């Protein structure tokens, strides 16, 4: 690791300008992903702007919208009373990610900004279009067991590794981003990108911008919900497949439904078609199965991850079944 420069500020505006004016500068929040990437030489910023002192650690309910500061830690968010009561799906997603130690440090904004866990991305001696555009994709034709089945491109089949983001995309969150020109707001579903021909871009944030807050509208999805994560060991592992499912049921008929999947795409994958199918239908196994089938339309596997074509719909069915069964 080069001996980068390190600056600390407690003023958002200062942080923004420090990064905006310097191409080699970047923000550091919890550091749980960035420091790892720097140790492996995947990224080598010459200047770090420590944003841990920024006043972005509030969790508040305002006008039926939950405001979450970007610097709130994953554990603080999971333990928050409002989140537990009104957004338990988010709580489950958060608890499924990483370890207690990492969640204590990892921030909401940092979680959204984390890079893929693709082994070819992490190994600087291997080809990877995301790390080094134009060098090729090691995962296509290589070990791609953990890789994407939706929205892939010829240049990249990596997945976004977050659990939290799968919960957030299901909850119709919005992202508030600050930049030189002030704040802008985008839907969470539009925050992350598909790889396309520019896999080096994970998301739609611009250089010099900073996530300052998330906003989630209150809903009635806090009774019948589930986050089902399938992984190679029981904890502390990235998802093979994960599904966030939430239902609002009226006499076993689905009035509202949210479904999102992790471990399948370059971004948290909202299952809109499956949701549309389920809306207004009875919460039966047959309908869950039909929805899962719809969700899988357009899926494409790459050999090692062929199993996801079966595991993904199965996991959707399981998540919906458990969500429904919750009293």
């Amino acid at each position, binding site marked *: 690791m080069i001996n980068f420069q390190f600056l600390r500020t407690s003023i958002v505006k200062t942080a923004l300008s420090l990064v905006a004016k310097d191409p080699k500068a970047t923000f550091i929040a919890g*550091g749980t992903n960035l420091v790892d990437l720097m140790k492996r030489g995947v990224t080598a910023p010459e200047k770090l702007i420590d944003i841990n002192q920024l006043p972005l650690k509030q969790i508040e309910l305002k006008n039926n919208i939950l405001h979450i500061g970007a610097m709130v830690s994953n554990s603080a968010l999971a333990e928050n009373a409002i989140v537990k009561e009104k957004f338990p799906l988010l709580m489950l997603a958060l608890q499924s990610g990483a370890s207690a*130690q990492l969640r204590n440090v990892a921030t909401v904004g940092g979680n959204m900004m984390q890079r893929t866990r693709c082994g070819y991305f992490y190994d600087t001696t291997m080809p990877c279009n995301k790390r080094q555009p134009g060098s090729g994709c090691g995962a296509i034709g290589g070990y791609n067991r953990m890789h994407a089945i939706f929205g892939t491109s010829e240049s990249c089949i990596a997945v976004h590794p977050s659990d939290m983001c799968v919960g957030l995309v299901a909850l119709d969150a919005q992202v508030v981003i600050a930049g030189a020109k002030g704040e802008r707001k985008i839907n969470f579903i539009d925050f992350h990108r598909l790889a396309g021909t520019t896999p080096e871009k994970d998301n739609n944030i611009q250089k010099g911008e900073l996530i300052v807050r998330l906003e989630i509208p209150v809903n009635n999805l806090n009774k019948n919900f589930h986050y089902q994560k399938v992984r190679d060991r029981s904890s*502390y592992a990235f998802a093979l497949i994960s599904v966030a499912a939430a239902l609002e049921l009226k006499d076993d008929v689905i009035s509202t439904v949210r479904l999102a999947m992790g471990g399948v795409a370059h971004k948290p994958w909202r299952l809109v078609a499956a949701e549309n199918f389920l809306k207004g239908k009875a919460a039966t196994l047959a309908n869950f199965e039909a929805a899962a089938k719809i969700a899988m339309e357009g899926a494409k596997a790459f050999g090692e991850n062929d199993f996801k074509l079966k595991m993904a719909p199965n996991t959707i069915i399981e998540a919906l079944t458990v969500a429904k069964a919750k009293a």
Partner: protein
Amino acid sequence: MSEIDNNQSGDTRRDFLKKTSLFTALSLTPLTVLKAADNKVDERFAELFEKIPLNLKVNNKAYSLKVEPRVTLLDLLREELDLTGTKKGCDHGQCGACTVHVDGARVNSCLSLAVMNEGKSVTTIEGLAKGEELHPMQAAFIKHDGFQCGYCTPGQIMSAVACVREGHANSKEEIREYMSGNICRCGAYPNIVDAIQEVKEKGTAI
């Protein structure tokens, strides 16, 4: 009051050295120093600029240090402060051997830059016992044989103490989930869980 809270300059060392006004202030010959910086030879000089101040408490002892920003909290503890009880197992936040408490919260010290801990209070395994009197978790680990080689043990114990304090030790299942960030290759897991459960059930404030 500066907008930048630590006193490192916003420029690279070379850029910094190029600022003649500062050289004047430092009464140094610009050309010589600049050449030294270009050739990366004058380390004694470089230290002035590459190390930044860090004030933190470790096990209730206050330290005023100067460290390179790239030094992790783990390496600071082990290599500079000789607190080798905190272990390096993977250096990438994937094993938990380096777990310490920072302001009471358990964290992986390998992924924390030391300079990010300015003004914080760090507790390591060396700070857990009260003199000769073992912390109840340490005693329980011995009683239940919660280790074999002992290398993951300090991390397991620091994590275990936090697990109980956080209120995540209410059942074996919960303990297992909330301790899963601490890998033990010898496989002492069931014994560790027994130790934690016993400490929790005794209800002593830890």
